[in-house]
């Protein structure tokens, strides 16, 4: 441990390593550079996946086929899901982890600096494979991001590229997680006990364990798909003694923890932002840690609630239903704690706080619909409808995106030494909030009324809500251009940030480091009492 700190000591504070220009970014082993790479990569992917969503919303603006053919529509749903989950949201939070964890625990850098470089640089290759699959004969796979067998067996070579992309993404996630676990467990400053860490570090520690446990399972599922496709195995083919439903069990054993892999770091960001703008410490820190751990553990025993309609035995149906409803308890604790943190605080509403409150609303709405969907009889009616689309977008997709925005506005002054434009930030918040609810709230109604998901065309009774949803989606998309402008403007010509722009923020990066932070954070380790 101490050797790492001493090694970092040998460099001057603003030293960028041996290269400049592009080579600096390719060869960098600095946690801040790598964090920046992760964040920009995820934003690019967010735009790519967003454009795909807009293609779908354009097709769904009116009944009939106008914009794209059905098989291309299916390719869009698949790639939108994969790119948003693995390319946009997950790397964004790894970017936050890279920037923040060493600063928050008083470490000079991540534990495995070279591995860190590789974890990131795997991603562009995986992203390229996903995009490349569109140009293969037959195009990208049109099977949905869940890649259900046996539909995957009918796809062209684009399916194989997707499988390899998933392998590489998984590898990147596992390496990143090992790095995070090692950093947090071994590199905390003297006096920084586990239970004194900022909650963001706790949520990431637990997330990293989830990733290490869940990603290999996904790799297994897609590998079995690959061998079924090319090497004569029949894991998912009844004719050879296999079972298509086996795929779903394996996939969701990964897939449900994956939901929390996305949500937990978002909880972490929110747990930093809300106390800072309430000027009051986080309420129930200990119960927050336990609730996070409880959610993580429960996430491994609820996977088949995604499969109520496959025809499980009644005992299975009941077990997975009861286990799933249990998740409401620790999740409720978290929401109550956040609200209690605000209670009798001294609140102010700068952009990060607005996005945190936006997250709280979106996440709670998604949590409520989650409770509705956890009940097997209702889920059987709503499974594979737009109700589910609305639910998971609230709870993990835009919920996590809002947490990401909160985090960027919160730490941007620290990272760049410059302030963003508060007025524009508020505009970004209100436009995003209005349009995102316009997009997804009405989808609850569509699902209840009986519109299946993943269809390029629909019966006439669904027209109005679909129009509203499409208008909302385009509005939300445009609002993100504003976000890009705000960030670029802050970096280029933002006002110089004060040492502590947020008076209520009290973790180490605010209290022990100058603004902007030096290239190497803690050359001498801070000592905490």
């Amino acid at each position, binding site marked *: 441990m101490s050797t790492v700190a001493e090694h970092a000591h040998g460099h001057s504070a603003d030293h960028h390593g041996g290269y400049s220009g592009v080579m600096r970014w390719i060869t960098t082993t600095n946690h801040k550079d790598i964090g920046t790479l992760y964040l920009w990569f995820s934003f690019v992917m967010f735009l790519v996946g967003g454009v795909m969503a807009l293609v779908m919303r354009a097709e769904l603006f009116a*009944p*009939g*086929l*106008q914009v794209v053919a059905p098989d291309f529509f299916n390719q869009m749903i698949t790639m939108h899901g994969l790119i948003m989950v693995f390319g946009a949201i997950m790397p964004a939070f790894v970017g936050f982890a890279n920037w923040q964890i060493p600063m928050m625990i008083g470490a000079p850098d991540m534990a495995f600096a070279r591995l860190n470089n590789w974890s990131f640089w795997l991603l562009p290759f995986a992203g390229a494979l996903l995009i490349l699959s569109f140009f293969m*004969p*037959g195009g990208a796979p049109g099977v949905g991001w869940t890649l259900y067998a*046996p*539909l995957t*067996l009918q796809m*062209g070579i684009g399916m194989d590229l997707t499988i390899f992309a998933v392998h590489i993404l998984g590898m990147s996630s596992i390496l990143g997680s090992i790095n995070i676990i090692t950093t947090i467990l071994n590199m905390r400053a003297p006096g920084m006990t586990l239970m004194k860490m900022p909650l963001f570090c706790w949520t990431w520690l637990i997330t990293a364990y989830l990733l290490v446990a869940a990603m290999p399972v996904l790799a297994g599922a897609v590998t079995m798909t690959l061998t079924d*496709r090319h090497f*004569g195995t029949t894991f998912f*083919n*009844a004719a050879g003694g296999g*079972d298509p*439903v086996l795929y779903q069990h394996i996939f969701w054993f990964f897939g449900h923890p994956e939901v929390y892999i996305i949500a937990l770091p978002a909880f972490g960001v929110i747990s930093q932002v809300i106390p800072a703008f*309430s000027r009051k410490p*986080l*309420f129930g820190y200990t119960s927050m840690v336990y609730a996070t751990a409880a959610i993580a553990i429960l996430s491994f025993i609820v996977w088949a609630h995604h499969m109520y*309609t*496959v*025809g499980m035995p*009644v005992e299975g*149906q*009941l077990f997975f*239903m009861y286990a799933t409803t*249990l998740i*409401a*308890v620790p999740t409720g604790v978290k929401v*109550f704690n956040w*609200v209690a943190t*605000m*209670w*009798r*605080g*001294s*609140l*102010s*509403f700068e952009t990060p706080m607005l996005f945190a*409150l936006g997250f709280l609303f979106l996440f709670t709405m998604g949590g409520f619909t989650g*409770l*509705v969907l956890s*009940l097997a*009889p*209702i889920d059987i*009616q709503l*499974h*594979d409808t737009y109700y589910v689309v609305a639910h998971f977008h609230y709870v993990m997709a835009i919920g996590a995106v809002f947490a990401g925005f909160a985090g960027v506005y919160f730490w941007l002054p620290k990272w760049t030494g410059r302030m963003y434009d508060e007025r524009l930030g*508020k505009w970004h918040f209100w436009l995003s909030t209005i349009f995102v*609810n*316009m997009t997804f709230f009405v989808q609850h*109604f569509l699902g*209840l*009324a009986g519109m299946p998901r*993943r269809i390029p065309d629909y*019966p*006439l*009774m669904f027209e109005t809500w679909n129009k*509203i949803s499409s*208008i909302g989606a385009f509005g939300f998309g445009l609002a993100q251009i504003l976000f890009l402008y705000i960030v670029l403007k802050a970096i280029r010509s933002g006002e110089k940030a004060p040492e502590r722009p947020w008076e209520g923020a009290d973790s180490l990066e605010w209290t022990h480091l100058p603004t902007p932070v030096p290239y190497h954070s803690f050359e001498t380790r801070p000592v905490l009492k």
Partner: protein
Amino acid sequence: MATSKVRGLALFCAALAAAASGAAFALEWNLQPAASPIARDIHDLHEYIMLLVAVIFVGVFGVMFYAVYAHRKDKGHKPAKFHESTTVEVVWTIIPALILVVIAWPTTRVVLAQKDTSGPDLTIKVTGYQWKWGYEYLKGEGEGIQFVSRLATPREQIEGKAPKGEHYLLEVDHELVVPVGKKVRILTTAADVIHAWWIPALGVKQDAIPGFIRDTWFRADRTGVFRGQCAELCGKEHGFMPAVVRVVSQEDYTKWVAEKKKALAAAADDPARPWTLEELKARGEKVYAANCVACHQANGRGTPPAFPPLDGSALVLGPEAKVVDVVLNGVVRDGKPTAMAAFGKQLNDVEIAAVITFARNNWGNRTGEAVQPAAVKALRK
């Protein structure tokens, strides 16, 4: 802040109004009216949960918005110091857990009822194909009836070349007919990939899994036509395979069974007799429109590379036996099935002979030869 909120709300309302005025259709925003006891249970359960959720929502956000309103820095509110309270934390862990127990009771009752498929009056097997439903009356009145049910909405409506009808995408050529008040057990399976048979008003949705049989049931408590769609992504035409159930009175059902059996007997094509080229072409055009046009297109040019053209295709114009083999058994490449499905079990000899004759004598294809049903029969394995 306050003004921007109001402005935002106004914008939102304006956008809503603009969007709503563009469409003349009713705003569906709840579950479809129930037509079976299970569907009604689902409704009740949903309303009960929504009520509960509304109360919790008001509680949580009431507290939050009160804090947002009253505990503001710009009002000079000084932050309190507290950051934990074991009592409060234990209370808000236990109360939600108790609420869950209260929810679990009525829900479990419905799960048990939903899963109880015993003692049916009528048993029907539903088979999912890419992209249509096959129905087979296995047991009970009407035993032996079987037919395939396809989307009846014309291609022109989908492509915007004709005005859309009332039941756009929710209409089929042959509806599933069942008697009112009888327990109908549905067995599902599939021939190719996973589909899901779903009739919202009856509260049934069951995945149809290739190689396995699963079951569900319903008892319709009123007559009427109930429409649903395939709910599991099953490929290109997933959005175009509706399922329609017509619930009729017992007398009407008995009548329907008699008529259907007579019609099925009369329609039984005789593959033994020789058919003329014109007869086969006319019949083939219909078979093509129902089974082939989605992939190979009306102009026979397909959408390569996934769906190859038939117009001018060397295979189509080549040896008869090879073409018959492809239609009967599908195309299997490297041991895995491709998008060209096997039609041997869905189409009879006459239909297969007819559609091949049509493809060999349409567009630029001009063989001038008829493929006889007897030849197809001979090639069946």
